[in-house]
């Protein structure tokens, strides 16, 4: 790479006619950071500072938070989130790998399965797991009937059940992040290695895997962070002692114990950030932002250094022969696992029973009709789409510059900025929701969809940024410079070169932002007031009539998503043939 002045390297230029304004990458961090400072930092600090000040400075709440009871909950939280994220990565990676290399048609089907899992309502999903894994559930029932076991296995209301439920929530995130990265890597590394007569696994391990490290780290960190904040699932599927910190914080907030809830949240945040730092150190070159500020492609070596030796040779010897079929097998199993809850939710939604029950009897479209004929449900649906749409726009408009800035800036500020941007995902949603509620209430700005969308953006923005950052780490700025040298203006370069190459990542980021908002409950509950009721709030409320309507709504949303998705695919295909004709 030719020596360039640091200011040009990776910089973004915005030009109007001949006057060119050179924006340093660090400046790109400003909009997102400013947004988060106003709509997240300030409101949340106002909640959290109560943990330190009560008629003067005090650490009383922190002393209490370190009592064994709460210390244990903290340890559990980290342990559970780490194992769920680890499992999601272990099985998600081979799946994404198969998806990245599959024929387009197969890939579309697999993406649909992953998205459907992502889309199903968390509450309906929890019931599905209970009906599947309970002592009278589908699994135990089948095994008992086949005389494989003689007494029911305990599969739920313990660590096993909790992990099954959590991995199901986290794995789609991991898979989609990895896929977005793998698409930018392509097949070349593998072909190159194969031409050097490396075994299939050896080729993968040495040439392909290191290239996907940024996706691995981003996927793992996201899963870990989201996992550490999960609470409904922990409450419903976990057993005694599987209580998560976010459950505890929600409980404390409900009793207006701001000070203690704040102390717990601060400690949780600190612990998770330290854990992420350790992960970053461990993965070295795959870190989300690398030390010293050298951009990805300019770094001389961006491979995790593994000492080749007996261990790697042994692993190679074992995995080389079975590598070709191992991944597809894992991918198929993962697809089955991801669709399992739907196999329960769908029959319940068609069942005659007037309360959510398993096994369903009879068949009826009643619950779908209940939804379609209810103004409340329809209104909530419209609200949800509008809120999620606005949230997605905000997340992309602010997230793309932020991701570019994080990937290319050399500033020392990047680390702190990234940590700050991750923190909304770690601090339990209820703290942010409350902070924003108090903040917006001052301006009489609650009870409308814009308030909820701004609140949802606080988490959607970091999600979107992280996904795009992972893909950008594999993106060569030299391509942009090439475009510029061929006379493309800076904006033109971004729209015609940068964005299309990042299309997969941008689409994934948009999906994440949209889905985050679509599924978020607390923001609508607190900030939405009585007017901006969303679909997830409506579902949560209607749990109380025990009717299967929520399962029908869940299925309808999945159906709708599939239609939109297939529609987009078809447009894309027409698009491609169109541009071919152009050529």
């Amino acid at each position, binding site marked *: 790479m030719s020596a360039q002045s640091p200011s040009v390297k990776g910089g973004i230029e915005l030009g109007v006619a001949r006057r060119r304004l050179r924006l340093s990458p660090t400046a790109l961090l400003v909009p997102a950071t400013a947004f988060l400072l106003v709509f997240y930092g300030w409101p949340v600090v106002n909640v959290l500072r109560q943990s330190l000040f009560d008629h003067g400075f005090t650490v009383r709440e922190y002393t209490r938070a370190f009592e064994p009871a709460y210390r244990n909950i903290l340890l559990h939280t980290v342990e559970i989130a780490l194992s769920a994220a680890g499992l999601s990565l272990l099985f998600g990676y081979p799946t994404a790998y198969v998806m990245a290399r599959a024929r387009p048609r197969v890939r579309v089907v697999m993406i649909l399965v992953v998205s459907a899992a992502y889309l199903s309502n968390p509450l309906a999903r929890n019931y599905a797991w209970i009906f599947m894994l309970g002592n009278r559930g589908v699994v135990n029932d089948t095994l008992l009937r086949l005389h494989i076991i003689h007494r029911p296995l305990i599969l739920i209301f313990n660590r096993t059940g909790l992990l099954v439920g959590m991995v199901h929530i986290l794995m789609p995130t991991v898979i989609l992040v990895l896929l977005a990265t793998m698409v930018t890597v392509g097949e070349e590394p593998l072909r190159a290695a194969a031409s050097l007569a490396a075994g299939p696994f050896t080729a993968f391990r040495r040439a392909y895997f290191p290239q996907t490290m940024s996706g691995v780290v981003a996927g793992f960190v996201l899963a870990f962070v989201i996992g550490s904040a999960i609470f409904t699932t922990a409450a419903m599927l976990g057993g*005694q*002692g599987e*209580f998560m910190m976010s459950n505890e914080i929600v409980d404390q907030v409900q009793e207006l114990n701001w000070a203690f809830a704040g102390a717990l949240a601060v400690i949780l945040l600190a612990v998770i950030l330290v854990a992420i730092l350790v992960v970053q150190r461990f993965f070295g070159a795959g870190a989300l932002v690398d030390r010293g500020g050298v951009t990805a492609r300019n770094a001389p070596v961006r491979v995790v250094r593994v000492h080749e030796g007996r261990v790697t040779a042994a692993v190679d010897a074992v995995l080389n022969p079975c590598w070709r079929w191992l991944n597809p097998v894992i991918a198929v199993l993962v697809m089955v696992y991801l669709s399992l809850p739907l196999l329960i939710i769908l029959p319940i939604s068609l069942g005659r029973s007037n309360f959510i029950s398993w096994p369903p009897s009879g068949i009826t479209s009643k619950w779908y009709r209940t939804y379609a004929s209810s103004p409340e449900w329809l209104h909530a649906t*419209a609200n949800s789409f509008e809120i999620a749409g606005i949230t997605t726009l905000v997340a992309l408009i602010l997230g793309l510059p932020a991701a570019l800035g994080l990937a290319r800036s050399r500033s020392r500020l990047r680390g702190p900025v990234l940590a700050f941007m991750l923190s909304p995902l770690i601090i339990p949603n209820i703290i942010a929701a409350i902070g924003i509620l108090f903040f917006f*209430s001052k301006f*009489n700005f609650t009870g409308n969809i814009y308030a909820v969308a701004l609140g949802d953006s606080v988490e959607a923005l970091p999600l979107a940024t992280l996904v795009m950052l992972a893909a950008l780490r594999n993106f060569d700025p030299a391509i942009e410079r090439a475009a510029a040298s061929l006379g493309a203006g800076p904006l033109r370069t971004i729209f015609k070169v940068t964005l299309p190459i990042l299309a997969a990542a941008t689409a994934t980021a948009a999906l994440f932002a949209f889905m985050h908002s679509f599924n978020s409950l607390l923001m609508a509950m607190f900030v939405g007031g009585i007017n901006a009721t969303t679909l997830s709030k409506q579902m949560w409320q209607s749990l109380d*009539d025990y009717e299967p309507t929520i399962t029908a709504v869940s299925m309808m949303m999945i159906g709708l998503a599939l239609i939109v998705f297939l529609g987009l695919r078809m447009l894309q295909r027409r698009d491609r043939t169109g541009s071919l004709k152009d050529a």
Partner: protein
Amino acid sequence: MSHRVRHSCALGVVIAIALAAFASSSGARPSAQAASAKSRGKVVFVGTGGTTQDAMVQTFFQPFSKKYHVNVDQGSIMTLALAQAQVQSGHPYFDVATVPQADYYAGLQQHLWAKINYKKYYSKQELRQLPRSVRFSNGVGNISYGNGIVFNTDQFPAGGPQPDTWVDFWNTNKFPGKRGIPGCAYSVKTSLAEDALLADGVPPDNLYPLNINRAINKIKELAPNAIFYNSSDSAITLTANGNESMAIAPNGRVKVAVDKGAPLQYVWQGSRVTFDMWVILRNAPHMVNAQKLVAFMSQPKPQADFAKLTTYGPTNPAAFNYLDANTTKDLASDPKIKRETFQKDNLWWAAHGQEWVDACTAALGH
């Protein structure tokens, strides 16, 4: 390339139009109340939503609107944090809410609730009817209910042994199956500690002050067979499906499930009985209408109608004049049921709730 751009533009426009059409076709939020032609303003209520609030609309809000020509706007979901944010903002958007007594006392400490003006909005006769025990300075007792055992009638059918005491609830040999019990924090609002002590042989009259350690040791006994919940609705669904054979739940919530055909039965014997509160925000925007509404909802007739729909009992005993024996046999405030249940000591809980949660969390990790 130009094609691609054009197509994505077109797609964007199509999606925008579709969304707009969708939004407008679904229309504005349906008003829960029939707007009155000669409306005299409004009052805004926030509750817990769902079937209970639907019943409130029918029996409290609609008759109130008719009588006073005041619209009642309503929504959910009420939480203490919401109330505090609204009060602190200086211009809350709602006036009246219903809260459990635990929240009443916590909110009282934060000065969230307005004084109830009994002198101005209640007639002499109404005050004679309404017992002092439900007339709090900043709230009025609204509905009286029990927290007790609910069991699955497929697993313990009539004719065979059926659980009817807390000793039975703790006896997993005689009555096998999992038990749905509230987590430590949630148990402050529902019940658990008292139930454990009753199962351990403490007489109902000697429950308070609660022996926290004894209660926790008894709960530890049950813990291996317990499924902790923080919403009684999920416990009721699990019990209806046999994932749990018994749970602790409020009587009115069980009734909703039974009406839908769930194989459940509620046990009054040993239930912990209490009532929730109507409260008005300190700086409520429609204070006069709010006071009127709360006074109206303390009257016997609407309370009786509400009880018929929900089996949540009236706090105004005069309501029994409007109820037949068939309804009262399921009400917490029925004299016969009063004899086999016990009253929750909310003042003890207001003072010791946090102590309980800390001790319980330390012992059970919940």
